[in-house]
């Protein structure tokens, strides 16, 4: 299945604005993030928390909503990785 990964701000500059990843059926959000980090090691520190691939200072959204590392992905999902906000 194919999943779209979007990155913003400093993450966009590190990983590109958008990429389509081909993943095996049943892959979880954690699997996807591990693949992203292995391609872009610079993201590891920001994305990883003490317990795994989510929990760092970054926010990860799945289809524009909050998500859990164990969430199982589906064809066409959109995953977004967001550094801490600084708007306003």
């Amino acid at each position, binding site marked *: 299945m194919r999943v779209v990964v*979007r990155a*913003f*701000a*400093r993450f*966009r500059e590190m990983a590109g604005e958008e990429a389509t990843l081909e993943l095996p059926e049943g892959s979880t959000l954690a699997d996807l993030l591990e693949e992203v980090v292995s391609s872009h090691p610079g993201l590891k520190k920001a994305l990883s928390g003490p317990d795994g691939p989510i929990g760092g200072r970054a*926010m990860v*959204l799945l289809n*524009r909503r909050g998500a859990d590392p164990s969430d199982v992905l589906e064809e066409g999902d959109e995953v*977004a990785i*967001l*550094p801490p*906000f*600084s*708007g*306003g």
Partner: protein
Amino acid sequence: MAIEITDREFSIEDLVAGAKRPDAGAVVAFLGTVRDDGISGVEVEAYREVAEEELARIRDEAMATFDLKSVDVVHRVGSLGVGEAIVLIVATAPHRQAAFRGCEFVLEEIKRRAPIWKKEIRSDGGERWI
């Protein structure tokens, strides 16, 4: 009531005029501009679809929490020079305290919850995400 993320300039006068309500005598507007900290400007980026949803949620929460009659938010994206407007929030209420509290609430929640980012462009050409 407008919620807008835009790469164009906007008119404060038009937004305030559109926010006036006959039953609301108090209008509080916050305008955030690019401050000269030895920079030539900022670049503003947003996860637009999510940011617009979140701004609308913040507006709805503000309306439910304070006695407000309207809330408008316009946030710029793109390249902005020193002194240019970044964000305008307009809150109207029957009473001044609600308008002040509501406007400030919306601003604080935008900073905390809206997926928007600013990069400072220094006068020497250096750049820094803030």
